[in-house]
Every structure is written in C-alpha cells, then in structure tokens.
C-alpha cells in the first residue's frame, strides 16, 4: 500500500512549495458507498504521488449507503491541504475531515498476531500478551493467535516483542479514527 516517498524534486518548477517538514495526518472521508468510489480515492493518491500509510473502509450507515474511509497519509502541510481539497472534488465524497488538524481524535487498530513456539518462549508470549491486554483467539499445542486492539504504535511494540518469541504472521486492519467529544465529524 505504501508508495515510496518522492525523492527531493529535481525540478525548479516544484521548489517553491514543500520546504516544510513531513507530517502524518489522519483523514476521515465520508463517501457514498457506490461501485468505484474506493478506486477513485486510491487512484487520486497514486496519480498525484501522495502516500498512503494506512487505509480502511467500511459502510457505516446501511440505509443511506454511506461509507467512511480513514486514511493515514504523510506529507508537508501544503501537500496535506492539497490532498484534502483533491479528495473533496471527487463527486461521491460528502465530507473530508482532517482529524489531525482538528485535534483530539482517537485512533484504533485491530491486529491478529500468530506466534509459534514451545516451552519458555510460549510462556513469555502469554505473559506479554496479558501485559498488552491481547486476547488468545486460537491456540494449538505449539501456537497462539492473539487479538490486540490499540493505537498503531502499541501494536508495533507488541509485534516487535513477539518477533524473537516465534512470530509467524501479522494481520492488521489499518486505522479507524473518530473525533472526541459530542460533535459529529
């Protein structure tokens, strides 16, 4: 999913903007759940050379056929602003909210982590899983599958800890995010 970040531009045409530092932003995009809408969003990112760190999508209002796409992207503030405007131009998009600019948002991701091992490693994996509040959702005599929910960096930490203990596979959902407080997005 990750496109490589463009190298520093060789062209004088593109040197006036984009001198600022790169930032990571979470965009929440409410769309009509119609065929091709995800292709439009993903196509926009690839066509204009923007990065996608994470992208999740699911229908959130079945009656109205509305889906929410949550995109984590990186770029300079100018590029992030441009991404928001470009997204807003896509006809079936209702609303684009930059949760990072709004501040006070909650981000969660779900991961399933498979670890294979015996003896001391297996005990250690269980112990760490408890510390991270990961649940065991599948077990054999030589493996566990842990389910873990949290901020992406917490999941990164857990995966790193599992690596020497027999990490086999990781499946992650990508980030879902919402604003804090009583207001809608």
């Amino acid at each position, binding site marked *: 999913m990750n496109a490589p970040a463009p190298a520093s531009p*060789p*062209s004088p045409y593109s040197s*006036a903007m984009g001198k600022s530092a790169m930032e990571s932003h979470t965009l929440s995009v409410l769309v*009509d759940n119609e065929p*091709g809408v995800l292709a439009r969003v993903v*196509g926009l990112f690839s066509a204009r050379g923007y990065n996608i760190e994470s992208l999740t999508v699911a229908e959130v209002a079945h009656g109205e056929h509305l889906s929410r796409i949550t995109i984590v992207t990186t770029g300079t503030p*100018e590029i992030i602003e*441009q991404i928001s405007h470009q997204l*807003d131009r896509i*006809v079936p998009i209702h609303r684009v909210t930059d949760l990072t600019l709004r501040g006070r948002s909650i981000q969660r991701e779900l991961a399933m982590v498979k670890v294979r091992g015996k003896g001391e490693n297996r005990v250690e994996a269980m112990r760490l899983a408890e510390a991270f509040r990961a649940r065991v959702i599948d077990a054999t005599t030589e493996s566990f599958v842990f389910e873990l929910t949290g901020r992406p960096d917490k999941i990164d930490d857990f995966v790193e800890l599992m690596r020497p203990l027999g990490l086999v596979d990781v499946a992650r959902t990508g980030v879902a995010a919402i604003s804090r407080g009583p207001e809608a997005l």
Partner: protein
Amino acid sequence: MKQMTGAEMIVEALKDQGVDTIFGYPGGAVLPIYDALFHQNFVRHVLVRHEQGAAHAAEGYARSTGKVGVLLVTSGPGATNAVTGLTDALLDSIPLVCITGQVPTHLIGSDAFQECDTVGITRSCTKHNYLVKKIEDLPRILHEAFYVAANGRPGPVVIDIPKDVQFALGKYVNPRGLQHKTYQPKVKGDLDRIKEAVAMMAAAKKPVFYTGGGIINSGPAAAHLLRELVRLTGFPITSTLMGLGAYPAPDPQWLGMLGMHGSYEANNAMHDCDLMIAIGARFDDRITGRLDAFSPGSKKIHIDIDPSSINKNVKVDLPIVGDCAHVLEDMVRLWRTDALRADKAALDAWWAQIEQWRARKSFSYKKSASTIKPQYAVERLYELTKNRKTFITTEVGQHQMWAAQHFHFAEPNRWMTSGGLGTMGYGLPAAIGVQMAHPDALVIDIAGEASIQMCIQEMSTAMQYRLPVKIFILNNEYMGMVRQWQELLHGGRYSESYSHSLPDFVRLAEAYGAHGIRCSDPADLDRAIQEMIDSPKPVIFDCLVDKAENCLPMIPSGKAHNDMILPDTDEDIGSVIDDKGKMLV
C-alpha cells in the same frame, strides 16, 4: 408517465437538457441509441471520422457556446479513442458529456467483443463517470452528468451504458427539481475576503491582473465585469493562453499573454508587481516558470471556483473560493460603493515602467520580402478577418503560440486551443464543432503541417455537413516546437522532427472536394487569404513559411519571468538553458 426504452430516455434527456447537436460514431454497443436518434428531429448528430474528433468537436462546440458538448461513441475502441479528447477537456475545464456504449451487463468482465473497462480507463481523465447497471438509474444519471459537467469547475463526464440497459423499459424522469446530494460547489465568494481584496487593490502600488480560462468558463458576464473592474482600477491586465479574449487585446491596459511565450511586459509586470490578482487561473508551469523566483515581492489574491487550485503550485495570501462572475460582481460593487481609488501617483510610475518594457516590442520579428514569416502570416490573417465574426482554433506547437501572440482577440469564446494537454490534432475537429454552433461565422484553424495530419480525416466531416472551416497551415516542414527545443537543448540535432513525405495539401483538399490554396510569396499573401475567406467551401491553405523561425520571446525552462530570451538578443540560443532546466518540459 409512459414507459420508454433506455435508448429513448437518452434522446429525451438530451432534449430536456437543450442539446441540439451531438458528435459521434456508431457501433454495435450503441445501435439502440442510434435507432432512437433516427426517429426524431430535435437532436442533430454529426458523424465524425474518428472518436477523438468527436471529443474535440464537442469541445469546440462547448467552448464557443458556453453549453455542454455531447459526444456519443461505442464500446471498446470507440471509448478508448475518445480518451485523448476527454483528457484534453479535463485539463482545460471544458464541460462535456460523453455517452459510451458498453457490452450487455451479463457480458461485462468476460472479455467480450469490443469490451473494455471504460469507467476504469476514464476514471482519471474525467471529472466523474458512471456505469449504468439498471434502467431505473438511467434518467437520474443522465441529468446528473449534465449537472456535474457544467457546475463548479467544468469538466468531462462519461456515462457508460450497457446495451441491455439501452433496450430495457423504464420510466423517464425529467430533470426538474433534481438536486445532487453531494456535489454543490460554492459560487459566492466570502464577502469579508472580497472586502479585504479590494482594500489591498486600493493600496497597491504595482498591481497586475492575471486572468485565465476560468473567466471564459464563468460566462460572458464574467468577461463583462472583468472589463469594468480593470477600467475602474486602471490596473494592467495579462492573461493565460486559455483566458485570451476575456479582455479586449486592442485595449491599452492589455499587456498581452504571459508565460513561456508571453510578452516581455506581461512577464516583467508579474515578476515586479506588489499585488497580483489571479482570477480563474491556476499558476500552471507554463505561466510561472521557475517557482522559487516567481513574483517574489508580491501579495497574491487568488479567485477560483476550485479549492484545489489554491495553494497548489504557488502559496497565495488571500484565497477566495467562488465563481469568477459572482466574485467580480462583488468586487465591482464594493469598489464603487466604497468609492475606492487606486493610488494614482504610484500607478503612473508603474505604467511608466511597463511602457519601458513594452517598448522592447518583444513580439517583433525580422521582416522579409522573400519568405513569409509565420508571425507575418498570422498578422495578415488577423488584419483581414478582424472586422468579421471570426473564431480561431489551433493545433499545438509554434503556430499556436504565434496565433496567441499575433491574433488579437476582443471577445470571449472566440479562441479554442488545447492549453493544458497540448493535443496535436485538436484544431480541425474543434473548428468543426465551432462551425456547427455558428454556421455563419468565419472559423479558422491555425495549424502546423505536422499537427493537422493527426486528425486530417475530419475534412470528410466538414465536407459532409458543408462546414466551410478554413485550415491555415503555417508549413515550415518541421514539428517546429520540437525543432526549436532541439536547437535549444540538444545541439541542433533534429532527431525525427522533420516533416518528411508531406502530402500535397492543395491536392489533398481537392481530393476531399474542398478548396486548396498555396502561397509562398509575402506579396501575394493578402490576396490568397482573401481567396480563402471568400471561398464557400472548406479550405486547406498551405502557407509556406520560414523553416528556421523560432518562437520568441521565451522563458527558457527553469528560468524566471525576468529572464527571457528576446527576439533581438544575439545570444547563442543553444547555451541559455542549464542542466537543471534541461530536465524540465
């Protein structure tokens, strides 16, 4: 309401949208629509000879009328051939509705005959596109497509209609009361910001208006209001290639086009100004040149209907999102009611500076008594047609820039050119579209001998519909702009840019049943142009011009506005661009 087929609904929707002319080419997947067209007399169909021609003709029609241009093509190759025209319309913000046939729904995805993923292919070259899977959706989508194409920043919309949907029966719904649930572009500008803008204008010492195709798209009212505002303020005005005609070129406040081949006075005014008022222009790389040296000392106001145009290439100080005509109306009103005055003394000094730049006569060229200079040919064409209702289209290259420099437009919608995409082959089909909309006007495609061959097949269309379009070829036997860049950047190694094995254009015209004229003598040029104007037929005019002429002035790649190559400098043209500039286009 009576039941009708999908194909009948399409024709009904065209009528309801006020479409009297469409451009197209039949094929298996659109036969039901062609049958529905056969049974009516309201919508006139123009049969082109290639679907790219249909798209450009629809663009010419749209650009010259302000209406939505419509094309109808079949599935597969019909759709893919239209892609260049759709992309062209996207880049230049031309409202088009393109109806494509598709294989029946049950065959979609089976690699059926003449099947292609039309919505997939056109997703990135349209403003929006639709695949109609059920007859119930068809009427709404047809009307929505016209709404999306014409509102906000205009653009092309594709409706892909499978053949079974064209045959299916359903209830037609007319467009009255239809409201789009997500797409509602903002047309009124923020009044506080507009107030701030006029205050900045009143305080400016070295202001310049920089206008673009958005004024033309906004309609005649925008051009009218622009003229009023420019005259009220006394500020100088320049425009992009796409905006020519919005402000009358013969006027003394007009600085000429700006940008890579723009005038010295326009580019220097942009570089040295202290206030830039950008209206319906998008800071394209042909305009800005080197971005980090672009107008370094100015505050910038940017009025555009598309929020994504703002701060895209150039950071501006005061963005105003809205339709040009609406914002200009507020600006004119505020300037009047607040009795604002420009800083007269500062403005006089600014104009004195501009007049010095203007005195360099950057569009000048060395006259010749023996060969026709291409600039001279355009000048004479202008002089001999300026008192008529004349529409100019162009192909792409040197001739296009000479047309922009030396043909002086006084009205909007009279100038049709492929600006953003730079599509060779645009001019002839666009001229056909213009002539369909304006049967009594003089429509001239200023062309190059290379470009014209890219859609020359449309001569046949011009003949069939008795469209007396005039193709004025500046024939220098080279892809001139390619040749010029090879001279600039590649040591004069003219790799594949010579127009070899050219047809005899006079006999080619005659083969189509049109009129052919050739001229190589400057003394005979006026007579020959008059012969072209007087001919009731389509004309191919083969104007043999100087083969080595370069299009100047020029901002070389990677240079700033105040670093132009002028026609009278003796600089070695091959040495002015550095290695960094060579990487640019």
